[in-house]
């Protein structure tokens, strides 16, 4: 079974997991996680006997690709293949997540979980690794990633500002004057989180994508109160409801995906009715910006970019959302036909979040910033190859966005066609080669 524990074992074998066996004050977790690119497993948290915590599990794009059994460069194609061949989950009668149950009056206390205070200006401690499951009679199951801000031992805030399947369902429940029941799973396999992070069409059960990514059906177990199903191997599960208070409760600030402190938003309140967990559960903390903001989202977003390029009939050789671009920037190399450089730029800029797109030829390594800069330096004329589109739909979290008399953020988008100009001799743009390139430096330089 592919669960969080099996993935951590694999990371350990690869030297990508460090175990902290020294007793650790949970308030130090954020700083320690932020300083580590390796996944960090805290085995002895002060005040939380029997409870462990882990973070930075998906902090690199390579690790996310590895989770889905793909070479890093081929990861978005592997994801697309999974979208084409979903694997239905399998309902099981029981599961490890139900080993310990806390429900009923006075029994639900979120402080039993080591919910970290991640950033200095956060409005509270945050649960950041929650897969939120909702059910709808017409649309079926939906799974999404939502952050939850600790308020009281049985309530949190939830970030429901952006349009999503969950916000639509909540709006409909509100219209009926009802709360919206949800289930939350924390501590699952990275593929589950990446599937939930993908902007799937309405009616898609993200667990079927996760199953396809892992190549096996996800075992789901129904939770006792709502009957909603969560991965049976989750470390922690909860049953809760979005109260019919509407968007009235301040939530945030929170250190956001783009490495900036976000603002305070009015959001719903979540009331928790039950907590379940495995023996010695591992509480998963998704850190920002590199894990939750970039790595686990970059591959699903590269898929959206590939789909846009494919719709324009452009063949993509490689694509990446580079780390510093925090999911605003994309670099793609294409097997170009005349006129497709700028077409590719426009296709990429048509996707939801991309602000900046650079398109290069296949001979450029999109994963090497120096190579990409070299292409821009040697293949671009600014007046001809840079496209700027003002007043596009932007992200409110982009601090440069403007609000020109509308609640919707507006932002400019730009793209650079850094491919060899059409009609020019490609030979003039080829990298030179050193003489006798097969000579081995190690044969002449030691130490």
């Amino acid at each position, binding site marked *: 079974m592919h669960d969080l524990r099996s993935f951590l074992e694999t990371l350990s074998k690869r030297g990508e997991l460090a175990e902290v066996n020294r007793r650790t*004050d949970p308030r130090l977790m954020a700083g320690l996680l932020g300083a580590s690119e390796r996944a960090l497993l805290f085995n002895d948290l002060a*005040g939380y*006997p029997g409870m462990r915590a882990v973070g930075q599990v998906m902090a690199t794009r390579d690790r996310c690709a590895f989770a889905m059994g793909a070479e890093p460069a081929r990861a978005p194609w592997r994801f697309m293949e999974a979208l084409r061949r979903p694997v239905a989950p399998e309902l099981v009668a029981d599961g490890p997540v139900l080993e310990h149950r806390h429900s009923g009056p006075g029994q639900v206390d*979120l402080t*039993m979980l*080591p919910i970290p205070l991640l950033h200095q200006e956060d409005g509270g*401690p945050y649960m950041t690794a929650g897969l939120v499951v909702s059910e709808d009679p017409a649309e079926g199951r939906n799974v999404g990633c939502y952050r939850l801000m600790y308020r*009281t*031992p049985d309530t949190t805030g939830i970030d429901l500002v952006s349009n999503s399947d969950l916000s639509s369902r909540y709006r409909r429940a509100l219209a009926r004057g009802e709360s919206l029941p949800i289930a939350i799973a924390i501590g699952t396999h990275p593929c589950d989180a990446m599937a939930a992070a993908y902007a799937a069409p309405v009616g898609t059960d993200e667990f079927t994508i996760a199953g396809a990514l892992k190549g096996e059906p996800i075992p789901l177990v129904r939770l006792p109160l709502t009957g909603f199903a969560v991965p049976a191997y989750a470390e922690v599960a909860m049953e809760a409801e979005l109260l019919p208070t509407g968007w009235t409760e301040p939530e945030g600030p929170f250190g956001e995906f783009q490495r900036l402190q976000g603002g305070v938003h009015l959001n719903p309140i979540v009331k928790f009715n039950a907590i379940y*967990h495995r023996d010695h559960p591992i509480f998963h903390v998704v850190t920002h910006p590199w894990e939750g903001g970039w790595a686990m989202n970059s591959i699903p977003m590269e898929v959206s970019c590939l789909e846009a390029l494919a719709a324009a009939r452009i063949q993509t050789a490689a694509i990446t959302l580079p780390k510093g671009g925090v999911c605003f920037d994309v670099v793609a190399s294409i097997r170009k036909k005349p006129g497709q450089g700028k077409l590719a730029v426009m296709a990429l800029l048509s996707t939801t979040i991309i602000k900046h797109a650079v398109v290069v030829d296949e001979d450029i390594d999109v994963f090497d910033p120096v190579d990409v800069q070299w292409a821009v330096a040697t293949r671009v004329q600014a007046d001809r190859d840079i496209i700027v589109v003002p007043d596009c739909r932007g992200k409110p979290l982009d601090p440069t966005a403007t609000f020109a008399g509308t609640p919707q953020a507006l932002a400019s988008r730009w793209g650079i066609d850094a491919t060899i100009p059409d009609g020019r001799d490609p030979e003039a743009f080829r990298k030179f080669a050193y003489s006798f390139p097969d000579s081995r430096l190690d044969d002449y330089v030691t130490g």
Partner: protein
Amino acid sequence: MREERMAPTRRTELAERIRVLLAERPLSVYEVVQQFPDDDYRALLQAWGDVRAALPLVPDAHGRYRPPAQGG
């Protein structure tokens, strides 16, 4: 997993001390946690939750909470 619960008196006392601090000046949760380096984290979360349940606290743009009566 063994449950570890804080004595109710300590929880109440911590909550009261947090309330007094917030009455003096707006504080972020981080600043509140910094004020109690010797208390365990879970105890602080419980006390903070009790304060939030009792008072309609509103954070400013830097996450500093103040009771609404002191707003402006």
